[in-house]
């Protein structure tokens, strides 16, 4: 799929006395540079005015975690420790306890994710056999202390 109009396929040295002199004079380069700058001035902006305009992430973006709940409002997690094992950053800490519901044995008493250790690789979501944890599209995380960055079970359920 040869593209003959590309500059790269030609010899880029200017040929002839006139072209060489013009290049040495530097004036044509300045003019063409100014032309390009003007062109870019009227093009649509590539930047966003961030706090006012927020970028919309694609579906499937790997942001903050969420613990999912089923139709009856019970959390789906059965404390199988699979996400904790799969996590390469070792940021998940689960404490299991007996489940209050009859259809499962265990449920997490505490489920902590250290968001400062987390590398947002999505391996916990992949490893979960119950589809109980997922990564949301939230990418802004603001907190004023280190303690706030350790998300507990309530924070993760309400995400």
């Amino acid at each position, binding site marked *: *799929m*040869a*593209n003959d109009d*590309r*500059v*790269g*396929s030609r010899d*880029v040295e*200017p040929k002839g006395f006139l072209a060489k002199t013009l*290049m*040495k004079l*530097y004036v*044509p*380069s300045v003019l*063409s*540079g100014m032309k*390009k*700058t003007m062109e*870019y001035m009227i093009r649509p902006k*590539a930047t966003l005015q961030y706090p006012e305009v927020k970028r919309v*992430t*694609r579906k*499937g*973006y*790997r942001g903050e975690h969420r613990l999912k709940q089923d139709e009856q409002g019970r959390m789906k997690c059965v404390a199988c420790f*699979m996400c904790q*094992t*799969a996590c*390469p*950053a070792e940021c998940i800490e689960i404490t299991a306890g007996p489940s209050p519901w009859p259809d499962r044995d265990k449920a997490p008493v505490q489920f902590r994710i250290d968001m400062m250790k987390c*590398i*947002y*690789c*999505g*391996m916990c979501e*992949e*490893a979960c*056999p119950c*589809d109980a944890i997922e*990564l949301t599209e939230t990418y802004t995380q603001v907190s004023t202390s280190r303690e706030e960055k350790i998300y507990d079970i309530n924070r993760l359920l309400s995400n």
Partner: protein
Amino acid sequence: MAMQRPTRLPMEVEEQTEGDLGSKRMIVNFGPQHPATHGTLRAIMELEGEIIRSMDLEIGYLHSGFEKISEHRTYNQTVTVSDRMNYLSPLCNNVGLSCAIEKMMGITVTPRCAAIRVVLYELSRVADHILSVGLQAMDLGAFSVMLWAFIEREKLYDIFEAVTGARLTTSYTRVGGVMRDVPADFIPMVKAFIDAGRKTTREMEGMLNTNRIFVDRCKGVNWISKEDAISYGLTGPMLRACGVPHDLRRLQPYLGYEKLKFDVITEPGGDVWARYRVRVREIYESLDIIEQVLADFPEGPVNVDMPEVIIPTKTALNNPGGGMEGLIYHFKNYMFGHGMKPAAGEVYMGTEAPNGELGYFLVSDGTQKPWRWRVRGPSFYNYQAFPQMCLGQSLSDVVSGLSSLNIIAGELDR
């Protein structure tokens, strides 16, 4: 270009007394914190006036222990480490690592997976080269070119985000496949980028090729001979800029590169200008490769049908009819002592990353975790030839030369 190979003089500090400034040699530190080092690198130079007479390099300022961390991770988990090494083209690291583990285990990926990997690999190469050229121009004073390059790179990162879910820390590949299939609008998205990328590259080229300042500061600067380049172990654009047609995609094809038509770009110069030309021409070549792959993009499964390596899909897992076996494999994949275990042995797999040969050397002792996880980062080999290139050159050419090496400090120190 008739250039003499400069000889390296021993570095010695002479005491400088007031009154004879300029007659004695002077030691100048370049870096570790310098805007033009693009990372934390340090070069100690001995100057005679403005001419560099000897140069010593010091590395290790960005040592992160990636290799050691990886020895404590399972094979699939190490992919998260790999994409933090070369932060200009993380997907190349991901693909290279997965290919190495697959070679170790004798797995052949599906055609669709190979096609996805090739497209992402070449897109990463474009992202790396386009930014590298932009930074090279920025170091020589043309700031706008870098911003145009950044706009293109943002478009590429949007594609990476749509495919992998992250812009930089992609962690996309898995042993025997990829994390997830590409989105439905992947092909139109990449095609739109190809057109825009060609246009911007042509614009950048048009601005730089006839720019006298840029040309004068590139031609004949940081020259290295073909023989020196080979003996220093240079690879990639650095070696091809010396006129050596060395490209692992052609010499040791992987992921179906043997079926694709592309030229191995070489330039005879061996200087900064030749490296710039090689990079720019490779952008077009990569875009051509992507077009070829997209024209015949295979359908079918993305992951190999090996439940002991790839976890079963969630739908199979939740299906009560055939779910139990899937569930067992799913648990076995993650449980300690039960997961994927390559047979004891070692493997080396080199891929043609944007900077040169990116090789992974893995040693397995038959457990879930690699016994040794070593990376041959091209930046390290490219950087060690830097003093040879700089000898006899003026101080201002160090900046131009360093940006042409495209050193990634994360990969250099690992």
